[in-house]
């Protein structure tokens, strides 16, 4: 029977006609520029050091989470437990720091390890146990948040002052948070040149074809979740620096926001196409929308509505260029 054995392979192809929603990456940069423009015009002191710094400080966790989510989505997966991983990392890092600067390296290493291990578990469930990622990670999210609650039954812990002050500092005239975001971008650029990213893209593009080609599919999937978990750990560490404390509920809402950022940034939810650059822009756009609503003086009952409406409108607008490229 022609076409049946790799039949699912064809899904990847026909999707290209029908289901293709991919914001071209440049659209997200344009949107980002627009968001910055609108924000700056509404906000008198937008370009002051404090303001830029404080914005960047809040961007870091979502940016890192969005990059992690991007890698997972590129590989054809999705991680609904990302926020719970972030929480767990937050709690572990703060608990281990015990407020002493000497323990910071240990705590950060442990945080990365925890993030990586959670990612590993998710990856094994998706790749080897072959569960549907969206529900498997929904289930693991309970496990990670349960663990977080177990480790830190109520918010607290203390973070050395030097650590969170350092995060708010300026280094060589550029805010530390900006350095971190630059670091994340560089990390992505390095990863992009690595075989593993190519394999992740191949698996997300067409799993069966990738397998038939000799790509180590399961390993690539696991790698995508482990990398995702590591970036989630970075996000968790960013939150520790931003909040200077631990909280067993801190990460939850980041999960869905990170997915939105990824899509606004031009990565296709079905995997295989896109990149982290757009997601970083997407994360910033989402954060800036909050600012815009703030500085536009929207009445308090309308804030939620306007916020949501802007996001939906941005998605719809961003999607229009892709409508024109419908043919094969």
């Amino acid at each position, binding site marked *: 029977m022609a*076409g049946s054995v790799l039949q699912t392979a064809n899904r990847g192809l*026909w999707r290209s006609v029908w289901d293709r929603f991919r914001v071209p990456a440049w659209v997200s940069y344009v949107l980002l520029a627009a968001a910055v423009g609108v924000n700056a015009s509404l906000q008198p002191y937008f370009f002051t050091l404090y303001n830029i710094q404080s914005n960047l400080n809040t961007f870091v966790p979502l940016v890192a989470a969005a990059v992690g989510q991007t890698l997972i989505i590129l590989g054809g997966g999705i991680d609904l437990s990302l926020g719970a991983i972030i929480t767990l990392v937050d709690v572990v890092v703060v608990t281990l720091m015990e407020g002493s600067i000497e323990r910071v390296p240990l705590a950060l290493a442990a945080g990365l390890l925890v993030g990586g291990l959670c990612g590993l578990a998710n990856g094994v469930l998706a790749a080897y146990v072959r569960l549907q990622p969206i529900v498997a990670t929904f289930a693991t999210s309970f496990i990670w948040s349960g663990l977080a609650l177990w480790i830190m039954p109520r918010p607290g812990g203390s973070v050395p002052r030097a650590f969170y002050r350092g995060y708010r500092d300026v280094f060589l005239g550029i805010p530390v948070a900006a350095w971190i975001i630059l670091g994340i971008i560089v990390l992505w650029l390095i990863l992009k040149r*690595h075989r593993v990213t*190519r394999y992740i*893209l191949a698996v997300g593009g067409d799993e069966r074809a990738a397998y038939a*080609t*000799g790509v180590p599919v399961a390993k690539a999937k696991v790698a995508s979740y482990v990398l995702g978990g590591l970036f989630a750990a970075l996000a968790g560490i960013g939150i520790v620096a931003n909040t200077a404390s631990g909280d067993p509920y801190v990460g939850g809402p980041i999960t869905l926001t990170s997915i939105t950022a990824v899509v606004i940034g031009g990565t296709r939810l079905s995997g295989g196409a896109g990149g982290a650059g757009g997601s970083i822009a997407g994360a910033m756009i989402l954060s800036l929308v909050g600012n815009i609503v703030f500085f536009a003086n929207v009445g308090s009952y309308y804030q939620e509505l306007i916020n949501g409406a802007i996001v939906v409108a941005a998605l719809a607008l961003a999607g229009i260029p892709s409508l024109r490229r419908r043919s094969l």
Partner: protein
Amino acid sequence: MPYLTMSGVRKRFGGVVALDGASFAAERGEVHALLGANGSGKSTLSKVLTGVVAPDEGRIEIDGQEVRIRGPQDTRKYRIAAVYQELSLIPQLTGMENILLAYEPANSLGFIDRKGLERAVLEVAARFEQALGRRIDLHRPVETLSPGDQQLIEAYKALARQPEILILDEATASLRQAEVEALFQVVRELRDKGALIIFISHRFQEVFALCDRATVLRNGQTVGTVDLAGVTEKDLVDMMVGRGAVSEVREAPTPPRDDVVLRVRGLCGPRLQGVSFELRAGEVLGLGGLQGQGQSELLRVLFGAEQASAGEIEVAGRRVVFRHPRDAVRHGLALVPGNRAREGLMLGRPILENLTIASMHRRRRGPGFLSARREKEAADGAVRSLGIKIGHLSGPASTLSGGNQQKIVVGKWLLNKPRIILMDDPTKGVDVGAKAELYRFIRELTQEGVSVILNSSENMELLGLSHRVLVMYEGAIADVLEGDDLNENRLVAAAMRVGRPA
């Protein structure tokens, strides 16, 4: 001792026995054809060799050593590569990225050596480009390439793996004549260097042109291996399907009636430039020319699946505008699309639903209620009249062989009693037996006054079935062949625009 031996290979997919103790043996330095009807197990046998399919039983020896292939990653060691029937390209990746996927040159940390990759890819591409006389853009995502170019990239990909054993599973299905030649040239070079090439095709001309020996499969078992120098096409067909069932393409078609059922004037659209023609009742109108000259687009526009930018369509004397295939269906049109898995079938759904989906509105009661009994009767009718071989109507369509799947795609329209059937390469990848049945069927339909527009990549099929052939070139009708002009020379000449000012 042959270079490659496979013996006692068994594979069962759920209830379907794909391979039933098949065996295969071939030497280095030969092109060995693997033949058989649809569903006889050719692709499965190939996939056992490339590790995609895990056999239930069987033994593989290469160079006298028993080998275990636990997955496609293992084939690297034995230098086995394949052009898969369904292609194995990653749509979003570029040609450059696809061709050496999983074989990228990289440093010890795993970072890809881009320069080295590019060099290696261009080297392979160069071997084709000479024979092809043109180059394919390797920096575009392959999904944006034409099906033919995708198939070529798949071939580049297999070649780039520097195989000792190369499998070509219907690797020519989407290729034009010149491209087939180019592929053959490269394959011959490879053979001359001592590689073993396994060639799977339903086109006998190609088999005889390229191969030295052939092994024939039937129902998952090996019927035998023959030297192609000593056999005829008919001998092979007998081996494949048992005695008797030979196609009778060249039987004079019944003449069409006079009434025009479809009139097209100045149709422009995606890849179409002012197409005009008339179609009469009971007529088979062929669409010829090189593949990719707008034939498929014409069918899609006629069917409302793509919008025309200019021009008029009249069905049975009335001007129509189809915004959706549903509109075309209401006017008695049907489309048998070119890629059945992608466009024709819902593989995971039951055969019954696949057969009834296009006509269920005819049988609905009230606000869309369907009677299970009447749906089943309808489906049974189609199965009977087309001689579709199925297990049970409630089994998923994916369990059927290619030929039977194709019959489902045709059968679903018959239930709708169409007046005009648009067929886009309906016998692509279909075996001789099924082809013959389809031809017979087209005849029967036209005798009842149904008209057919047939796009086909096989010239003999086109010539044998059509009353007239419209030869298309760059979206326009370049020539109309009828009567004595309906012969292969004229057809090829018209397609290549020989003897005409360009």
